């Protein structure tokens, strides 16, 4: 790399857009000071360069990773891009530049300042995925199971296989309200779609009963003589509580109101399932 250019790359927040940035950086021999999403751009002293997403360039960069570094590096890059690490674009860029020089060895330089943050970002994502595999709470709306989550990282792609395999004979939606995306599984076909809001139909009687039983079970299973709120919070951080029906009452939070344009609002479970079907059919 010839040196730092006083320049900020702007891209469209897509993975392909980011890979195009990597391409431009390498072929223009310039190192941007930052790569940011065009929507988050603010006026600054640095020159801002808009990078047009080019699928061909992106494909070339993506294909180069397993060839020049290794297959796991491509996995790692994908995971870090979906994580919530600060300046993740620059992290990945620096890692890739190191990888192009050092090859597969880059994956084992665990203490390298360009590699260590990659692994910790990946761990943050994977840890959240692991927790959410347990903390997701579905509600049965008749034809379809639905759940809402509020994760920090974009976890849905990593939850897909687990839930699809587990509930192969069911239909379900997991809605990520933070990233406005949903994992939809309908008629043995699963897809991640973007969705601005999801309004759920009223609860069925049966569902209410199961919720009551679960809440009662949760309350009963705790041993009073061993109460340990600090320990519980360590294992189950409070930011997940809003979506977990057994601990939500302890949070005492006002419900959020939905607004947005791309809204699924269903009156019944049947409607919800129809909408899910439409969405998967479109893809």
């Amino acid at each position: 790399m010839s040196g730092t250019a006083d320049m900020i790359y702007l891209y469209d927040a897509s993975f392909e857009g980011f890979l195009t940035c990597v391409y431009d950086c390498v072929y223009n021999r310039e190192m941007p000071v930052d790569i940011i999403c065009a929507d988050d751009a603010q006026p600054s002293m640095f020159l801002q360069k808009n990078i047009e997403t080019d699928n061909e360039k992106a494909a070339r960069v993506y294909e180069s990773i397993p060839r020049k570094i290794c297959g796991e590096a491509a996995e790692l890059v994908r995971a870090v891009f979906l994580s919530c690490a600060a300046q993740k674009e620059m992290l990945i860029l620096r890692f890739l530049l190191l990888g192009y020089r050092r090859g597969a060895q880059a994956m084992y330089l665990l203490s390298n300042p360009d590699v260590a943050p990659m692994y910790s970002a990946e761990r943050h994502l994977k840890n959240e995925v692991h927790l959410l595999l347990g903390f997701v709470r579905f509600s049965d709306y008749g034809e379809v199971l639905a759940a809402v989550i509020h994760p920090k990282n974009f976890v849905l792609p990593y939850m897909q296989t687990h839930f699809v395999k587990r509930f192969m004979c069911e239909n379900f939606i997991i809605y990520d309200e933070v990233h406005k995306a949903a994992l939809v599984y309908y008629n043995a076909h699963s897809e991640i779609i973007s969705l601005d809001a999801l309004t759920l139909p009223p609860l069925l009687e049966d569902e209410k009963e199961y919720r009551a039983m679960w809440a009662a079970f949760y309350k009963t299973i705790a041993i009073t003589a061993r109460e340990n709120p600090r320990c519980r919070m360590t294992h189950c951080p409070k930011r997940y509580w809003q979506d977990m029906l057994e601990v939500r009452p302890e949070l005492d939070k006002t419900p959020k109101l939905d607004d947005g344009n791309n809204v699924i609002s269903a009156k019944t479970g049947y409607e919800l399932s129809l909408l899910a079907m439409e969405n998967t059919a479109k893809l």
Partner: protein
Amino acid sequence: MEVLEKLTILADSAKYDVACTSSGVDREGDATGLGSTVAAGICHTFSADGRCVSLLKVLLSNCCVYDCKYCVNRVTNDVPRATFTPRELAELTIGFYRRNYIEGLFLSSAVVRNPDYTMEQMIKVLELLRGEYHFRGYIHAKTIPGADPMLVSRIGMLADRLSINIELPSEKSLNTLAPNKTKQAILAPMAQVRRTALQAKAELATYSHAPKFVPAGQSTQMIIGASPESDYHILMLTEGLYHKYSLKRVFFSAYIPVAENPLLPALDTAPPLLREHRLYQADWLLRFYKFSASEILDKENCNFNPFLDPKCNWAVHNLHLFPVDINYCSYEMLLRVPGIGVKSAMRIRVARRNGTLDMGDLRRIGVVLKRAQYFIVCRGFKPMSAGREQTVSALIDPAAFSFGTRQLSMFDTPVLSVVKGGAAIPEIKEEAVRCLARQI
């Protein structure tokens, strides 16, 4: 009786069972059924006492004919009684599982009529789940001591994990506190499960469709603090169980007084939580850190040090082995450095192949240096020649103090009786340091 009411009664009776793990077996879901299992296990929630809830932990029935002194469900105790029908319990499990509340079912039962009848009822539930509902999630079942071996092998085909509680750490205590149970009745099925599981594994190597028997292994549990055994005794027993019966886990349960009996600790005794914590720490050393029980405790020091965790305690008693050079020492030695866990040790092992490491490198890898710094050498770093006293003072476990006065009955050392008097904690800590340094 409503299912909700039954659930409350039977979950309440089952809550003193410690194990709630869903680990040890990977089974993918398929298009014919519901559910899958993950080898690492998944926690679905954490109860107010901080314990993981991953299985629906209930008794099939709490109408017990036995009279074990330490147990809430003993026949002479006046508590509400309930029994699930197999159908009710199967439906409840499926309902919870579909909503992702649980990872599976943990089924135990009080002894109804006799051990054989009880096991038959439990098998009925599992057969419903595995058969009619095509349930592929996790099932942990309890074996009832004294049940027919045929029933044990039947239930082992349906469950992922079996457990037989050894209840108390010695035969003598068992005879006094659980007169209806015998050592033989507990150990015989344990040996049988081990034998059958080994056999099934051998068959599986030959025929890929051979039926699996208890693929996630077996576990057991014992009550700590209801009987007078020393920590050394318990730890040796634990190690023996791992070796002899190939157990996956041994669980410890701090005794919570639920019954008044001259043979048991008084009702106002607090559960020995710190002791239980130390036992688990030692258990981890046995299973993941390649320690043997005789290294952790011995006949002279037959109880855990309340102020130092077992690994620190071992290290300060073996200071001649330290400091170790992070860049050159063996993996086994890395594991023995206080503060370095399995993950850190593995990362160090990978990273040091690509160049020598310094303190900054260790930090970036994610090694916690708070305790480790007193025991390691790396590029550009040597531990300060801190006196023994300083080292010990830096290592003292704050948990020993935050557990507060609950712990007192366990360790009759003068230091702790000061805690009872309500003296300021820093002073006690100082005194503890002096004591420990002398002792070492």
